[in-house]
């Protein structure tokens, strides 16, 4: 590939243009006669001047410097980088959806509201919840809505002492961060040796100040919490609620439901489990689902069906309020809706079963070469502990070497409770051949680590950019072109 190293500003040339607008057909004279001069900018904004083909080549060249699911295998644990079906994109791009203004009269958006209403129903059944709000824009935003609901629930009962949220030490960083943003105090509890909730540690912190426990199941180690019923009972007996982080739902669709496990509030990640693309970091969508008695606290508006018409219901006195402009990331919902309908109930179940099968197969083959801290049947992902204590090669080195072989590495250094963690999530959309060639590469790298550790320490070699100086970036702090 030709090396392209220009910023758009560097190819800008005065007088070039890429836009086309019709000639203004109203004559209102000078702008100074419409808006007082004191409000007007004296200079034009410093933006590039380029022709249309410059823009096209620039972004095409930049896209070639990226790696997506469409490029190759992306076993990024906890992120569920499954294939993003193309039909989803087509459906979300239909003019009849993209051209809707969110504040149009309800009678002109009945099709859009119907999609949202049905997606709410289907997600509710998948999770075993009563209702789902599609408003949150991302997983962490869904968490925030969920914790606001928990807080409002306790307050509505006059139970004002409950200001603490329990979070296991294996949790994703957003869990404690969200609890803090929702105004809670966080109590972190240690996991047991299998990475599961330590029941004694849990019992020790449960009391009448606990608002709830945040958990994901399967855990961040990819292991099912077999004690989940006991955990739920303990938390409920203490008057708390159980929050489900939906990051790991890809393991259990059609097989087991958080609602049946005893969870009260859940968020989904449509951009993980339901195949919507990650977009290079967003947009996501993080719907929040709740059990029946928590429905009144959902963010407004809630979509209701009344006399065969769909309406946006704002008249909900106990609502936590509004957490986002309008109704959520509708374009993302359309993709998830399309995914669920093209999969059907059996397809969703097969997806989870295959995701679990793929992960167990990879774990079995890799554990002979990498340290596996907890050796038991995993769900959709598993966590290795690098090459073990004796190796001088770190997980970062292994990840960077994988780049040379054309793979996106697994998630590294998470969860925090595993030293040198390598978290592998293959998803169900990868073939045996893909899994095998990745595994063979990992085995080869384990061999390289023994024979020539420096080879790994200086990797990658074949990428467009080599190892990048992050310290320099933070020190120089060049955050824009000038």
């Amino acid at each position, binding site marked *: 590939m030709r090396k392209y190293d220009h910023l758009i500003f560097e190819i800008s040339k005065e007088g070039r243009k890429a836009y086309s607008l019709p000639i203004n057909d109203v004559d209102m004279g000078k702008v100074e006669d419409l*808006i007082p001069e004191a*409000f007007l900018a004296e200079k034009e904004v410093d933006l590039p001047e380029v022709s249309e083909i410059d823009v096209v080549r620039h972004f095409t060249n930049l896209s070639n410097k990226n790696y997506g699911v469409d490029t190759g295998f992306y076993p990024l644990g906890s992120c569920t980088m499954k294939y993003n079906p193309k039909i989803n994109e087509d459906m979300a791009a239909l003019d009849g959806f993209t051209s809707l203004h969110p504040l149009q009269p309800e009678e002109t958006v009945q099709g859009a509201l119907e999609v949202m209403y049905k997606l709410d129903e289907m997600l509710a059944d998948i999770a075993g919840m009563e209702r789902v709000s599609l408003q949150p824009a991302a997983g962490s*935003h869904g968490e925030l809505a969920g914790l*606001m609901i928990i807080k409002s629930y306790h307050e509505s009962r006059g139970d004002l002492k409950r200001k603490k949220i329990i979070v296991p030490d294996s949790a994703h960083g957003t869990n404690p961060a969200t609890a*803090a943003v929702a105004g809670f105090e966080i109590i972190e509890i240690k996991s047991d040796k299998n990475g599961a909730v330590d029941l004694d540690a849990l019992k020790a912190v449960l009391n009448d100040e606990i608002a709830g426990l945040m958990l994901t199941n399967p855990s961040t180690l990819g292991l099912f919490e077999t004690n989940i019923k006991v955990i739920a009972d303990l938390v409920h007996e203490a008057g708390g609620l159980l929050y489900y982080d939906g990051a790991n739902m890809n393991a259990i669709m059609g097989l087991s439901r958080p609602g049946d496990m005893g969870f009260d509030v859940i968020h989904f990640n449509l951009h993980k489990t339901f195949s919507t693309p990650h977009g290079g970091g967003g947009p996501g969508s993080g719907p929040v689902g709740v059990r029946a008695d928590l429905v009144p606290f959902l963010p407004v508006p809630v979509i209701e069906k009344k006399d065969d018409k769909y309406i946006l219901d704002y008249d909900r006195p106990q609502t936590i309020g509004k957490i986002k402009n309008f109704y*959520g990331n509708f374009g993302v919902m359309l993709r998830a809706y399309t995914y669920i309908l093209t999969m059907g109930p059996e397809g*969703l179940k097969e997806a989870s079963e295959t995701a*679990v099968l793929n992960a167990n197969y990879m774990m079995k083959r890799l554990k002979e070469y990498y340290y596996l801290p907890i050796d038991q049947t995993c769900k959709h992902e598993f966590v290795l502990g690098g090459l073990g204590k004796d190796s001088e090669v770190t997980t970062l080195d292994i990840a960077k070497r994988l780049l040379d072989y054309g793979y*996106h590495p697994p998630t590294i250094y998470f969860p925090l409770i595993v030293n040198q963690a390598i978290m592998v999530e293959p998803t169900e959309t990868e073939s045996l051949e893909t899994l095998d060639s990745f595994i063979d590469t990992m085995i080869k790298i384990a061999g390289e680590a023994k024979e020539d550790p420096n080879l790994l320490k200086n990797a990658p070699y074949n990428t467009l950019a080599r190892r990048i100086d992050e310290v320099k970036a933070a020190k120089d702090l060049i955050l824009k072109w000038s």
Partner: protein
Amino acid sequence: MHRYIPNTDADKKRMLDTIGVNSVEDLFHDIPKELRLERPLKVEGPLSEMEMTKHMKELTSKNKGVDELVSFLGAGAYDHYIPSIVKHLAMRSEFYTAYTPYQPEISQGTLQVIFEYQTMMSNLTGMDVSNASMYDGGTACVEAAMMAVEATRRASIVVSKTVNPEVRKILKTYMKFREVEVIEVDMADGVTDLDKLKAVVDKTTAGVIIQSPNFFGIIEDVVEVEKLVHENKANLIMSVDPISLGLLKSPGELGADIVVGEAQALGNALNFGGPHLGFIATKSKLVRKMPGRIVGQSEDVEGKRAFVLTLQAREQHIRRFKATSNICSNQALNALMASIYLITMGKKGLKEVALQSTQKAHYAFNQLTQNGKIKPLFNKPFFKEFAVTSGVEASHINNELLKNNIIGGYQLDQAYPELNNGLLFCVTEKRTKAEIDQLVGLLEVIS
């Protein structure tokens, strides 16, 4: 076997043999029986591609959007022209199927896009730095308020009632849970009432939020506000329409400390309200308080320019329970679209869009208010939106307009009960003289 799942029965058998179990069922032995779902999920499908497309087209036939109707609706989401190349380039799957650029060596595309986005948003707002984008204008405003709270260690935010009511609602939700006081300041003739503002801003104020052009499209005079805010060592947070900055003075010139807003108007479709993107930009001194992702320039080991996520110590995955924002993602794909838009329009194009919107809005305003039945609600300079009232109920006017395939203005009494029969019209560069004349003709009859 589903088309998205490539493993055949023979493949699965081989994998099970390697694992040493008999069936996939054996891999779920750890889920207690009573927790197993013993019935199929209640979801529709599976549908083939053809069936799916037919189903969705049936649904879109129940919608009528701004491609079929002529829209004069704004109020926070705008029908500006989107150049054709935006979708072609943004739909390159190397962009949209990538994850957050945590592996910079194979993510230089996304990282450079964000770096260029940050540059353009900084230039547009007149600020030193921008982050990689936020969920939307509403949550960006919340994050700015929290930045002010953190920077001043004060717990009171003052917000003008001329700020978008939707944004104020979101602000109130968040601040209620953070136990930060929100003081709303009333308006006078469609702008922030300076006397009332003076009465509430003091040494306990963390930040003052002013929108300009405000919710009514009016350009706020912030010269006095800026003095007042800084005399009290508070932060001036300005919410702006990025399109307006093709014409109006930047918030940086006006002395803002933090600038936020909704950037949907930059090349992003209306999409029934999302995904859109918010932006946040600030001065260098506040960069470490700024939430979300930030891309910085660095070098690789060969000394080649390269980009990387930076200042990550600010973010939730490092700070955990000490975090002041839980934001994890940005709206990278929407920021990509905004970037392509800004580059395509360039300095001349953006100005032209702003200019045409202003001219057409003023033409509509003049024509509508000519005969006296439709009256201006306020007498202040405006950008692309203006508020009017009449003797007829706003909902009646809008219903009649809809019969003529026109989406009318935002009904102001939804958020401002005192503005009875008020309508907020928006006119962008997409509207033609003929469409405006048709609106005027119809209102002549209806009102």
